[in-house]
């Protein structure tokens, strides 16, 4: 049986992964927009993004837009697979 992925199994990180999974493949989501979706503070969101980045589940891109620093994130292939396994695990529990 597949183990529960502790990296995804945390409320904020679960929302981050779900928000990114809902986008077209390769689509980047801005930090400020993700913050509103996830309803987390800057510091809290930043820490969880770093954790998912270290796990290789998301990729972080930093650049400038209109002379202002911009941070964007996207789901990696590894992250997409891990998330699908996590969802399958949850569905497995519900279906018994």
């Amino acid at each position, binding site marked *: 049986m597949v183990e529960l992925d502790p990296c995804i199994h945390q409320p904020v990180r679960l929302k981050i992964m*779900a928000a990114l*999974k*809902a986008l077209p493949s390769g689509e980047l989501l801005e930090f400020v927009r993700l913050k*509103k979706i996830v309803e987390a503070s800057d510091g809290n969101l930043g820490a969880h993004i770093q954790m998912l980045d270290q796990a290789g589940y998301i990729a972080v891109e930093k650049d400038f837009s209109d002379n202002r620093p911009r941070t964007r994130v996207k789901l990696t292939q590894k992250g997409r697979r891990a998330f699908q396994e996590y969802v399958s695990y949850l*569905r497995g*529990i*519900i279906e018994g």
Partner: protein
Amino acid sequence: MSLSRDEAAANLRTIEQAGQRSAQALGYARSSPYFSLWGVIWILGYAGSDLLPRLGYSPRNRNWLWLTLSLVGIVGTILISNRQHRAQYAADADAKRRAWLRWVGGAIVVSFFVTALRLAIGPRFEQLASVFFPLLVALFYGLASLKLGVRYFVASIAVTALTLSAYLYLPEYFLLWMAAAGGGSLILVGLWMSKV
């Protein structure tokens, strides 16, 4: 670590909600430049339609004005769409071909529709078109709101109310009203959608 059925169901609900919010936010963000573009087209079209007769031109020149602006709007729409889907098209050339086919097909369908409408309505087309097309746009926004979110519904109500109120109660200022209030409201909705 193991989860109960209730915990698993709660997590699936969280996933669904976050996914919906994310998809809706992307939809709003992507829609924003289209609203702004067509808001400017409306302002130029309706203001120009009001000004042409005052400047001594035949009201029939309004058709050329709207045709030109519509072409500018369509080209702008395609450019915005290409920019928004650049990453997707780079990875999938077939997706770009399908998108172009959709644009060309859409343009042909709309052209047929407008031509058929013109033939059916006859000389009253110009008078009715200025109120019919905004209401048709409002209808599409209303239908789109069912899938894309409440901000489309607000846009639908705003366009309907602004168009009907001017057509019924301010007929002599209708074109200027549509330029200022109709076009302006589209731009405002575009800005609102970008703030997600």
